[in-house]
């Protein structure tokens, strides 16, 4: 069941086309990755979801109903460019921000204290923001994004400024939030985290959606007949045996075994490759290389730029 849907969204700023006929749909209790190069239109789409700007045409739906201003209390939004009030106690501003999202003062204070204890930052409650490092501020911002238990969470580059330990902590929390029922839209340039977290992605380039689907399927789709083989044997005889049918992409010789990466050129099958290799080597393992999100991203964007 879809929690969020955007249908045929267009947005133009002065002379810049920010979004062209973009549609996405986000399943309930899933993590949706919104990817794209800088300036592709991701932030504009996110701002439209948050009702900060309105689309020129197209519609957006939450829970099957057309979204209105009132729905924003069901959204938690962590923008890419974020900050906190400089001269306000951390506890006070967290409560204020939670109240703006519709929590009562009491509720806000209770929920916040739970999160502060969970992150072991209760001692910051009465500190000023200026006393905290950037990473510490990010933690507070993360909490203020999720404290009102929104159905839809939107994170724009949530890991920037975090060390690996805290990045991992936040990743775990995002997964936990999803498992507890939240739906997450997640925009990042960190492709490793997309592979780890996202159930579904959409790729936007130059205002147009160029790719959309479950993460596994997209990666499958960008496979390019590349295989990795671990074997024991002599590399020279292996490469001679492969001949002109295969393109050797990489080769490493280790003490006990060699690694070989090859690409099929003329519609060969796996059996063809094995037949070529078996006479000259002992095969230890054989598997197809699934492209990383990083490769998918680069390939998709380059392809769309060429068109």
């Amino acid at each position, binding site marked *: 069941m879809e929690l969020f849907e955007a249908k045929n969204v267009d947005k133009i700023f002065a002379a810049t086309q920010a979004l062209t006929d973009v549609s996405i749909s986000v399943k309930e209790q899933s993590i949706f990755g919104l990817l794209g190069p800088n300036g592709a239109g991701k932030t504009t789409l996110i701002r439209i979801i948050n009702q*900060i700007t309105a689309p020129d045409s197209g519609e957006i739906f939450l829970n099957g109903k057309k979204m209105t201003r009132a729905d924003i209390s069901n*959204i938690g939004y962590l923008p890419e460019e974020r900050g*906190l009030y400089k001269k306000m106690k951390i506890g006070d501003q967290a409560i204020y*921000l939670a*109240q703006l999202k519709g929590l*009562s003062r009491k509720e806000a204070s209770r929920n916040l204290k739970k999160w502060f204890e969970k992150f072991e930052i209760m001692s910051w409650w009465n500190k000023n923001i200026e006393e905290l490092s950037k990473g510490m501020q990010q933690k507070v911002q993360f909490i203020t994004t999720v404290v009102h238990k929104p159905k839809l969470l939107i994170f724009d580059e949530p890991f920037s400024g975090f060390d690996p330990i805290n990045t991992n902590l936040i990743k775990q929390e995002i997964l936990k939030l999803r498992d507890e029922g939240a739906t997450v839209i997640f925009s990042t340039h960190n492709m490793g985290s997309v592979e780890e977290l996202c159930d579904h992605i959409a790729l936007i380039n130059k205002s147009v959606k160029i790719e959309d689907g479950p993460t596994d399927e997209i990666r499958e789709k960008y496979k390019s007949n590349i295989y990795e083989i671990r074997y024991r044997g002599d590399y020279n005889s292996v490469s001679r045996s492969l001949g002109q049918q295969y393109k050797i992409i990489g080769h490493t010789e280790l003490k006990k075994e060699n690694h070989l990466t090859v690409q099929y050129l003329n519609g060969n099958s796996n059996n063809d490759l094995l037949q070529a290799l078996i006479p000259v080597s002992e095969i230890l393992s054989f598997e197809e290389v699934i492209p990383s999100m990083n490769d998918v991203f680069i390939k998709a964007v380059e392809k769309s730029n060429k068109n």
Partner: protein
Amino acid sequence: MNKTLLILKQEYLKRVKKKSFIILTLLVPFLMAGMFALIIFLSLNNDKEERTIAVYDESTLFLGEFGNEGYTKYQFVPKEEFQELKGNLKGSEFYALLYIPENIYSANTAQLISEKQVPIELSEQIERKLSQFIENDKRRKVVAESGIPDLEEQLSHTKTRIQLNTLKISDSGEATKSSSVVAFIASYAMGFIIYFFVFMYGAMVMRSVMEEKKSRIIEVIISSVKPSQLMAGKIIGTALVGLTQVAIWIVLGVVSLLVVQNFFTPESAQQIGQSLMETQSQMNPAMAQAADQNKIMEVMEMIGNLNIPLILFCFVFYFLAGYLLYSSLLGAVGAAVDSDEDSQQMVLPVTFPLILSIMLLFPIARNPEGPVAFWASIIPFTSPVAMLARVPYGIPTWELLLSMFLLIITTIGAIAAAAKIYRIGLLMYGKKVNIKELIKWLRYKN
């Protein structure tokens, strides 16, 4: 809770809790009261020092005629002692030496020799004594020579001081006493107060918007509330801070007035009155004669004749409307720029009419019916200050209504325009904004 209310409360408490606000609010009235008390204290205790002045009268005109006055005593000394004292004033009992030369009648000068700087009151006292004596002496001679028996008396009758009582005929044909002085002071003061508050609190709104934009918290905020709610909360919250400040000042003013009244007993109050009268009579005896109790009553009556309810109503109206107009514009400026330098550049064109109106305050108060006064009080951007400066003199109803109507229309328009600039500007970074750019924003659709 309503979100506008929440922002309003937040803005209000943030400012009211600030140390600088508390200090300024508490300090200003105490500073004023303290200054006032100091002046009274000084005027009471200033010249209690007993001084004896040695007088050497070479002209021999004054012998025995130089009476003691206040805490100052005069003692005539012969020439030898005078010469001796001149060399050794420090060791003597005298504070200063007064040398009256032989030719004082024609030269009109005398000398006061002292070690320390002589207080102005003392030198004025001596000057007055000398002048009065010589003037009387001259007059006596003229009277004696003229041979007219009651000339002295006739001359004293020639002393004249005309007091101009201005009457104003109101619409109902009733003449009331008005005083241009009282109205002038009232109009000047109110024009200034409006200017000061609109500027100070308008700038506060602007800084508050800029702070949110610069710290980048703005995107989170406007994903929770509408920009218009945010702006409304800010503007009203800041206005309440201003009203709180004024309210505290009024309370403190009343309290400190009571304290001052209790602190100074009736006797000391009388003393102040006397010393004030004295200085006045010293300065100009003719004026002092006119400045009797009735004068004070008259001023009170003139203040009473000002249309106080109308003035108060206009004050509140023009203060609120002027503040709304300028704070919404300044708020939009705060949203449009992202550095302090840029804001400086933008603030001047926006506040220029306000500054112009304060410069026009003097010509307006001097000639409240003139064309400058008329146009300045009708044009909405200058009318909050200019109209207030005219109201104490009385104002035709149609002019007042026209001015108010135009101001309301303009304020509504300004708020709508500001809201638009605000919404666009808040998320616009790294763009150098000028007036032309802002006008372009106004043409954008949502």
